[in-house]
């Protein structure tokens, strides 16, 4: 049979799509203003973090409300390692991710042992204890003030507004420069997670989620895997933290609170549990929606002027956000990514089975 199989067509299509997306991503800083770049960078950081928590919660079935803690560990470690210990910034970033992983590892006695709602709320402890440390360990964290974040310096390029840089007539400030770093990190993080999910560890993780005992009997060291995934997801959190710190240029403890963790859960649910694409789509949705609603608050219908007693723009934004979470779960089981999937691949697969099934004898 020489005609291209459906999967081959799909693969070419997907490759083309990837190239197109990449080209668009490179072009963005030349056209969009800072607000959009920053929004995009927040979304990229969120996507990296969401991929991490999706490995844990989506693929392995371990609920975590403590993801924000690992973002904080990543962000603060980067600052501490580069400012206080004087590590070169790229090295500090790598080390920060490792520190986040190690702190996830320290939690493994809990992470390897608890499940479901219990683990979820146990991880809440990370948030509260973490905030306590961030506020009190002033020499390292700078206390409530936080600390300024040294800009990343990679191969002589500084990711900051100075020294000035103009590319193709467009002034390249820190946001424009960080944009490319963000794209690279996100692409790398996504590719890695995809590899993990599709490979041997991914199968083990899914089986632990679906049937823990069976996983053990099939040779998967369950507790070690649970802890391992927790570490991996913490490292993703740490990387997201480093990126968000670079965008903020100052780390402050308030940011890394429980609401951030809840946002991450909303991301993977809205996007679709267990997949990389789901995490990315969900992260974009959750982190962009409030910013867009705030920005265009003046144009929203049914919204009153601030102070006039009606629904204010921010309230409207909040209500829309809540409604979106509810609506996606109610009407799009499998999330946004699941919707795309359902429109595409799965249907054809079902049909193929249905067609081949009635004639089992002809299978050779």
């Amino acid at each position, binding site marked *: 049979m020489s005609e291209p199989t459906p999967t081959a067509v799909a693969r070419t299509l997907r490759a083309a799509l990837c190239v197109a997306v990449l080209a668009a991503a490179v072009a963005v800083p030349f056209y969009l203003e800072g607000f959009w770049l920053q929004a995009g960078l927040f979304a990229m950081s969120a996507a990296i973090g969401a991929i991490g928590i999706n490995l844990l919660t989506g693929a392995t079935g371990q609920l975590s409300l403590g993801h924000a803690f690992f973002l904080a560990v990543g962000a603060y470690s980067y600052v501490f390692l580069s400012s206080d210990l004087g590590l070169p910034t790229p090295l500090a970033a790598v080390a920060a991710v490792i520190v986040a992983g190690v702190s996830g590892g320290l939690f493994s006695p809990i992470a390897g042992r608890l499940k479901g709602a219990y683990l979820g709320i146990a991880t809440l402890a990370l948030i509260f204890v973490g905030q306590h440390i961030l506020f009190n360990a002033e020499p390292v964290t700078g206390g409530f003030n936080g600390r300024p974040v040294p800009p990343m310096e990679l191969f002589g390029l500084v990711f900051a507004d100075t020294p000035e840089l103009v590319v193709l007539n467009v002034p390249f400030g820190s946001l424009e420069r960080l944009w490319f770093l963000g794209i690279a990190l996100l692409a790398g993080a996504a590719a890695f997670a995809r590899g*993990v999910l599709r*490979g041997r560890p991914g199968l083990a993780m899914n089986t632990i989620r679906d049937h823990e005992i069976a996983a053990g009997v099939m040779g998967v060291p369950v*507790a070690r895997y649970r802890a391992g995934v927790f570490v991996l997801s913490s490292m993703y959190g740490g990387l997201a933290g480093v990126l968000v710190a670079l965008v903020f240029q100052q780390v402050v403890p308030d940011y890394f609170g429980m609401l951030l963790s809840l946002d991450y859960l909303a991301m993977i649910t809205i996007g679709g549990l267990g997949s990389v694409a789901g995490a990315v789509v969900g992260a974009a949705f959750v982190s962009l929606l409030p910013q867009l609603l705030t920005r265009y608050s003046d144009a929203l219908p049914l919204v009153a002027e601030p102070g006039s007693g009606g629904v204010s723009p921010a309230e409207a934004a909040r209500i829309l956000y809540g409604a979106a979470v509810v609506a996606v779960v109610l009407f799009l089981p499998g999330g946004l990514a699941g919707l795309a999937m359902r429109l595409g691949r799965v249907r054809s697969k079902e049909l193929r089975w249905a067609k081949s099934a009635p004639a089992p004898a002809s299978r050779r």
Partner: protein
Amino acid sequence: MDGMTLRRGEPHAHPLRRPRAPKRNQPVGSASGDGPPELVVSEVTVRFAGLTALDAVSFTVAPGSVHALIGPNGAGKSTCFNVLSGVYRAASGSVRFGGAELTSLRPHRVAALGVARTFQNIALSPHLTVRDNLMLGRHRLTRAGFVSAGLRLPSARREAVRHGARVAEIAEFAGVGDALTIAVGLLPYGVQKRVELARALCMEPRLLLLDEPVAGMNGGERREMAGLIGSVRESLGISILLVEHDMGMVMRIADAVTVLDFGRRIADGPPEEVQRDPEVIRAYLGDYGEGDSGGPSAGREQA
């Protein structure tokens, strides 16, 4: 509650020491040539709070044989499987397989020794495809960790291709070759049972534990399954320990039979002999005409 049996992974299950853990991930004895070792179960006792599920049970599975473990419901057959596969810990007794003592090993260590099993209630991942479910069976034979899978190192790819081919081969053998790309949850029960068996085969076991492989199947399907099991033994020469209530099937394919009742061994021997054993008839086979063979006798539990 000293002798109480604990499930592994529970907080209190702190195994004292785990002697003679085999070298990890060493595919043991699957290469052609060396046959499977003997499985020696001796004096295994398992207790749950206030209940002795296995009471000093001993039997031996000869290398390369099909050995059936039968007995009334609740006799402790699945419990015995759970001990053999490391899911439960015995209060006392030993299980030796080749050079290793299984009772002190965690499930994944037991698996690493080449012990595979199926479950009485299907324990597959319903959302994964058949191929993925089978690939999980290769877990102990493959290496790729987070890093090499994440980076898609050549070693990981090569491994995936090589083992993928073997999985396809096994699936074909087990009659689920057509279903490789289908999510298991969408398959009929009977086909899922085959996938369970195929997954166990994917571990390239030396000892295969099958818990009620034909339950829920009709006569024709049972025959097919029996044939399949026979052919597994023929082509791979591995030992098979089988729990089954279908006596027809047991008589047809088993080389030896051990009968449990209330956690105790009440008979052991070749099928024909066991089938005639009055004790076995009383406790297990009964007589179809009169279902009234006396209720459960006293004195079965209370540790």
